[in-house]
């Protein structure tokens, strides 16, 4: 187990959004999180690296998040340390309004990276399948890239930190089919090094990129199994209906 939710109940204000969810994710796998809009996928995802700390009304009602041997929400764990090990790629590409080079190096530099920065930039961009497109303009703004390139830059920025886990919240929802295909290929390669949790509304995408799939409905985790099984022989009627597109 690399990261896990145990009996987790989450709320905004008084309203429970995620209810008694238990989910374990093993090393070097891709797990897809699916479910209808508003069922709490993003909320759950953001608790794994404590990004929900910045939502004022958020409350962890019950249960815990474990990252390896660390209880993520216990008082003596520094959330900054968790975020440094558990990276995140957002739904909308959000590069810094500075150069491509600085987009990659900023995270490592504030976290005391002692290696060679030029090399880090090249290897991160290569692994994010962006190097060939930007190698001649590393000093131009990250905002001068296309949406798909920006999202790959954000992925490169996340892997430059050499994280343990990468959380992705609908990373392709703002992208065209070609960019989506590139990012899916990329996820396929990244799984050899990282543990990946990805939220997606695209069933084909879940089927293509993930080994495990978790289906959520109205804040509850209905089914969590190997992707093949979820798609071919779901145990729950709800899962089947959702995958077949009968609702959601």
């Amino acid at each position, binding site marked *: 187990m690399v990261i896990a939710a145990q009996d987790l109940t989450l709320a905004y204000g008084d309203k429970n959004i995620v209810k008694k969810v238990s989910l374990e994710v093993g090393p070097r796998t891709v797990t897809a999180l699916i479910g209808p809009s508003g069922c709490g996928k993003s909320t759950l995802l953001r608790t794994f*690296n404590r*990004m929900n700390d*910045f939502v*004022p009304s958020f409350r962890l009602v019950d249960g815990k998040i474990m990252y390896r041997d660390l209880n993520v929400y216990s008082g003596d764990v520094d959330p*900054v*340390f968790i*975020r*440094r*090990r558990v*990276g*995140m790629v*957002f739904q*909308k590409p*959000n*590069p*810094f*309004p*500075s150069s491509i080079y600085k987009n990659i190096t*900023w*995270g490592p530099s*504030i*976290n005391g990276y002692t290696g060679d920065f030029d090399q880090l930039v090249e290897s991160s961009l290569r692994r994010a399948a962006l190097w060939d497109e930007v190698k001649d303009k590393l000093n131009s*703004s990250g*905002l001068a890239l296309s949406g798909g390139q920006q999202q790959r830059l*954000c992925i490169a*920025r*996340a892997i430059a*930190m050499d994280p343990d886990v990468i959380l992705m919240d609908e990373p392709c929802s703002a992208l065209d089919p070609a960019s989506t295909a590139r990012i899916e290929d990329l996820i396929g390669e990244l799984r050899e090094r990282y543990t990946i949790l990805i939220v997606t509304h695209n069933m084909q995408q879940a089927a293509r990129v993930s080994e495990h799939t978790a289906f959520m409905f109205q804040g509850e985790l209905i089914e969590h199994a190997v992707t093949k099984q979820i798609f071919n022989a779901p145990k729950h009627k709800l899962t089947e209906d959702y995958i077949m597109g009968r609702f959601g």
Partner: protein
Amino acid sequence: MNTEKPITPETSVREAILDTPFKDNLDRRNFNAKIFNLVILLATCLAMLILGLLLWRIGEQGLPWLNWNFITSFPSRMAARAGIFSALIGSACIIILTGIIAVVLGVSAAIYLEEMSAKNRINQLIELNIANLAGIPSLVYGMLGLAVFVRFLNFGRSIMAAACTLAIMILPVIIISSREALRTVPPSIRLAALALGATKWQTTWHHVLPAAMPGMLTGIILAISRALGEAAPLILVGGVTYIAFLPNSVYDSFTTLPIQIFNWAGRPQEEFQAIAAAGIIVLLGLVLFTNGIAILIRARLEDKNRW
């Protein structure tokens, strides 16, 4: 209405929309737009005209007296020999000091209120108070400066006391406009930095502050220009009008351009009225100069970070 006629590929656009519940009234709306344009054009012209008249009047009076001697001479009882050197230096010293104090305090307060503090009742109360402080007449700040800086902190009637008074006076405006600028920075930038394992402080210092800087500068420029032209509170704090030496330290006594101008303009002799006008021209030049620099800096910053 021609309800009978069906819409075919040959129907003209006009005919096709005749029957819809949309009455677009384009002619009326365009006409209204034209009238509105005319009104704002007239208003602008009127403002420019009044400003132009003022400038012309001051130029006519003051320009003949404006020469290098006027700028480099100390004040004198004779208008022909009087100059604004000590006032100019006093204004420059005070405004630099004011700027440093007000920007450091104001921007820090804005960062604390906007980025660090929890959004609770106490902070809402502070917010309301700051907004109220911005509306207090400058004379009141002069009295405060006299009581606190001159007497209580024992700065005396000095450059330091004047700068502190002006800084406190423009602080609310700087805090409010800086918070406004911080609010325009997209939250996604903050989240991006925090998700990389940055502390709140690193996020603010490296990303939020640079992104908010151009917007903050606008408020800072306006506030400092106001402080530069302010005479009333400084007269209370103890600006003198006859100073024939340059300050050695921030605890020396002071005069400023507005005080000097105010003094000259109040004298009966026509020559003094004229050199007051010449002083106004110098003051305007100084304001224009500081604004110009700030606008240049802002333009450079805006070029550097865009989203």
